[in-house]
């Protein structure tokens, strides 16, 4: 309920006196008083629509039956919600709705027994429950028929007889079941701004559809699944989980597939994920998920190619072995290769507990600092520097007057964040988008900049230089001097951005009181990563002189920040304490001497093979196929699938999916979020920390023994503050590194940064593993950039 002025007025609903904030609707008031009013088209968070007419009420001194969802309350209003006359009108309205909806499941005499007797094994000609609709049991119409006690439908029945649309990779559309409540159309346009669905035609022939009946993907569908989540009938249904029945359990967990870390409800039946989204239980917070959270987890969890037992590589063939055998073999080899011979490459799609366990195992049991994530950023200190900035909350984005989004394809990499940018755009914020190629965000931008690929740093310099002159900002002398040397013409040629365009950007930023810079990860994946970071910090510094400037780094992969923070880094111990400083904190806690020499990064471990004395690797997840891995003397991979890289592995261990794990992650806002298991992992799979504990026990190391995930969590929190302080901290002074812009364009080395594959889970390409995903990417074929 919104209350702008905080004025409360008193109303009477069904004889109950209540106080509600001024401006709320009758429906809000009734909900707050715990009075149920049936609705179909109403959806919290969307503009009221008043389409289904089921929420009609009687209000004293008001003619007719106004709808509760659209009528604002006034002082001393007397409302009646359940008179026999109202219920009878509601019943008639529902009858009218149902005259266009197949309703055999709604008014069947046997509907109570239906669910129980449906699953018969008899092969005789008896009807044992009809399955016309995937939503049977979870349908809002069924609830309403029950509530209004509707027994028969007296109107002539029209069946639309349109063909169900099944050309979608993730969901089916059967508009014969549609009641035109408009929830999907509204959420697609008002909330997601995808603009895929609209009401087409008019009157009797009205349907939800796209322009000229083109497929969803041609209409620019992003497969966020919001329409499927809100559909009250079986008109829109997920392919995965259709016909499985009504989920019996719901677990709230966190999506690990990107760094936004959305809360999600995983709905299960038995040990199977039926769907992910709002029902049953509360709607997801934030309101919706994206293609990854909505459709992918069930597909990877129940993937047919998942390995479920430890495997040993016998000349290219995989043989099943028992856990005891696997641990024995691993221990035997790990004894030979301890110290700097050994390394661990972890995954950023893993819980902080596993990350902490992996790095502790590496340092404490194996005595090596060779621990890193894959893939890595060029700038090793990036996360420590990012940590120096105050994080911006995802829902705070909407409050900024100007948003400068650079080097990011956020609608793919972080759809929920980009959604907030779209919202800000529709709330009249100035959006400036700059990237090396066109993407969806440009549709929601006031200033659209496309610079030459690889010229981000020069573009940022152009901005910085103009910002300095336009706003008369005093920089430290070295930076001012450096900026003076920049030739505007050269810079323009190098980036392809004219001076006038730069001026326009500065002009749009100048009047803003709150500015947000969203820095995409392509800025940090290039070789000029360090320059880009410094330039951005200087721009941040400059903007802060006249406005309140926030900074958001769109780093990829769910728990990358959390994993780095808990020590998955060759140079940092947990808490970004540097290895080479010989910090006492962790060596005392673990009771060993940590080598003060920085370890090898992922690239150094692999690309220098053989010859860098590096012989043995434990890999969590997957890596891009690299033939140098063949030079390893002993290679253990723990992954959910057999991949191209697995052919180099000696031992392959099965792994948990995040839907089966217990633990925590730290998301892009640096909030600690919990991951809860929704289903049990297949019998022979063990969590990473448990495998490491078993190895450690065999190696007779007593300092690494865990029996529960919680023990690790407690150990981390005892030493490390995970509820990260979000108050403003002083940003350290940044040095301006100058890219050489005087080289003529033709002679410039062009650095192509291929768009990273954002659809990875622990290094495994989801687009390879999931045929639907592949279909989607093939079809898109660059159409949307």
């Amino acid at each position, binding site marked *: 309920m919104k209350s702008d002025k905080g004025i409360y007025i008193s109303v009477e609903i069904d004889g109950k006196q209540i106080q509600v904030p001024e401006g709320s609707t009758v429906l809000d008031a009734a909900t707050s008083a715990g009075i149920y009013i049936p609705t179909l088209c109403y959806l919290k968070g969307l503009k009221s629509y008043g389409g289904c007419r089921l929420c009609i009420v009687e209000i004293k001194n008001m003619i007719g039956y106004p709808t509760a969802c659209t009528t604002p309350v006034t002082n001393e209003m007397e409302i009646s919600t359940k008179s026999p006359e109202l219920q009878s009108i509601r019943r008639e309205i529902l009858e009218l709705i149902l005259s266009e909806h197949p309703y055999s499941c709604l008014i069947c005499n046997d509907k109570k027994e239906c669910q129980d007797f449906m699953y018969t094994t008899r092969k005789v000609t008896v009807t044992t429950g009809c399955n016309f609709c995937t939503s049977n049991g979870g349908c809002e119409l069924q609830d309403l028929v029950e509530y209004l006690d509707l027994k028969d439908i007296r109107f002539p029945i029209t069946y639309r007889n349109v063909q169900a649309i099944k050309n979608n990779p993730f969901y089916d559309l059967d508009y014969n079941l549609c009641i035109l409540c408009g929830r999907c159309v509204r959420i697609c346009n008002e909330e997601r701004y995808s603009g895929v669905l*609209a009401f*087409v035609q008019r009157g009797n022939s009205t349907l939800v559809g796209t322009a000229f009946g083109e497929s969803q993907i041609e209409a620019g569908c992003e497969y966020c699944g919001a329409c499927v989540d809100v559909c009250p009938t079986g008109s829109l249904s997920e392919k995965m989980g259709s016909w499985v029945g009504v989920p019996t359990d719901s677990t709230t967990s966190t999506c690990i597939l990107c760094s936004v870390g959305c809360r999600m409800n995983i709905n299960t039946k038995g040990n199977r994920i039926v769907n992910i989204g709002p029902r049953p239980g509360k709607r997801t917070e934030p309101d919706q998920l994206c293609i990854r959270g909505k459709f992918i987890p069930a597909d990877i969890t129940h993937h047919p190619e998942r390995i479920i037992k430890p495997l040993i590589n016998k000349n290219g063939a995989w043989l099943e072995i028992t856990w005891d055998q696997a641990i024995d073999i691993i221990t035997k080899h790990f004894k030979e290769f301890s110290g700097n011979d050994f390394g661990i490459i972890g995954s950023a799609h893993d819980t902080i507990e596993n990350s902490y366990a992996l790095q502790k195992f590496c340092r404490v049991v194996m005595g090596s600092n060779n621990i890193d994530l894959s893939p890595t950023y060029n700038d090793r200190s990036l996360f420590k520097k990012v940590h120096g900035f105050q994080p911006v909350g995802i829902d705070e984005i909407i409050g900024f007057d100007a948003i400068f989004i650079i080097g990011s394809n956020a609608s793919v990499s972080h759809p929920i964040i980009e959604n907030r940018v779209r919202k800000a755009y529709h709330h009249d914020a100035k959006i400036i988008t700059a990237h090396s190629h066109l993407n969806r965000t440009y549709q929601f931008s006031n200033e659209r900049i496309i610079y030459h690929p690889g010229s981000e740093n020069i573009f940022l310099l152009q901005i910085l230089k103009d910002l300095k002159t336009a706003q008369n900002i005093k920089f430290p002398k070295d930076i001012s001097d450096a900026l003076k040397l920049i030739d505007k013409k050269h810079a323009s040629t190098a980036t392809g951005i004219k001076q006038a365009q730069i001026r326009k950007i500065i002009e749009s930023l100048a009047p803003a009181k709150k500015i947000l810079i969203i820095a995409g990860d392509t800025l940090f994946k290039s070789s000029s990563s360090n320059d880009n970071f410094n330039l951005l910090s200087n721009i941040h510094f400059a903007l802060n002189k006249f406005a309140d400037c926030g900074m958001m780094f769109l780093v990829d992969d769910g728990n990358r920040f959390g994993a780095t923070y808990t020590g998955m880094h060759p140079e940092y111990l947990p808490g970004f304490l540097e290895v080479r400083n010989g910090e006492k904190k962790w060596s005392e806690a673990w009771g060993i001497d940590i080598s003060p020499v920085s370890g090898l990064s992922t690239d150094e471990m692999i690309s220098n093979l053989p010859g860098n004395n590096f012989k043995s690797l434990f890999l969590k997840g997957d890596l891009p196929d690299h033939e140098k891995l063949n030079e390893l003397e002993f290679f253990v991979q723990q992954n959910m699938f057999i991949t191209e890289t697995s052919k180099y592995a000696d031992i392959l261990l099965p792994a948990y999916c995040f839907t089966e794990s217990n633990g925590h992650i730290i998301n892009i806002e640096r909030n600690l979020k919990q991951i809860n298991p929704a289903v049990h992992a297949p019998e022979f799979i063990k969590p990473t920390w448990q495998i490491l504990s078993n190895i450690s026990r065999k190696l007779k190391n007593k300092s690494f023994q865990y029996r529960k995930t919680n023990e690790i969590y407690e150990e981390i929190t005892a030493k490390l503050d995970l509820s990260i302080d979000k108050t403003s901290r002083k940003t350290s002074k940044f040095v301006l590194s100058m890219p050489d812009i005087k080289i003529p364009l033709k002679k410039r080395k062009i650095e192509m940064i291929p768009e990273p594959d954002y659809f990875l889970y622990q290094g495994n390409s989801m687009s390879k593993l999931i045929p639907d995903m592949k279909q989607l990417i093939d079809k898109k074929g660059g159409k949307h950039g």
Partner: protein
Amino acid sequence: MSSLLNTLGKHFPECSKGDLIPILQHVQHQEGYIPSNTIREISEYLNISCSTIYGVATFYSQFKFNPPGRHSIKICLGTACHVQGGDFILSALQMEIGITPGSTTEDGRFDLERVACLGCCAIAPVMMVDNDIHSRLSVIKLRQILSNYE
């Protein structure tokens, strides 16, 4: 392609969302119908999704999505014509030329549209081909009338 965008810029410089219907009318006036690619161009120009534009355009019967035929048939299904069996005439006509209202024959000879009243109820049922009114129609008369239009 870009010629449309140029004329849009000239006639509707404000680029406001309220210009959608005038733009659609403008296109229909110029082209005789709304081609699918112009919806895409309008979508880019006004920053409204194609689906929404199509939804608006299909709401109004004045907008057509097929190129007009050489001859336009408007068949009246107003009250008087309905009572006099306009429905039969329409189904006979549909069978004769093989299209449903709102579309154009493959050879481009006729397009067919149903209208609510042509204002000459006294001589119902009627249809209009181009600018000629044909009155007191019967199924037998239809074929002969159509043969006059090539």
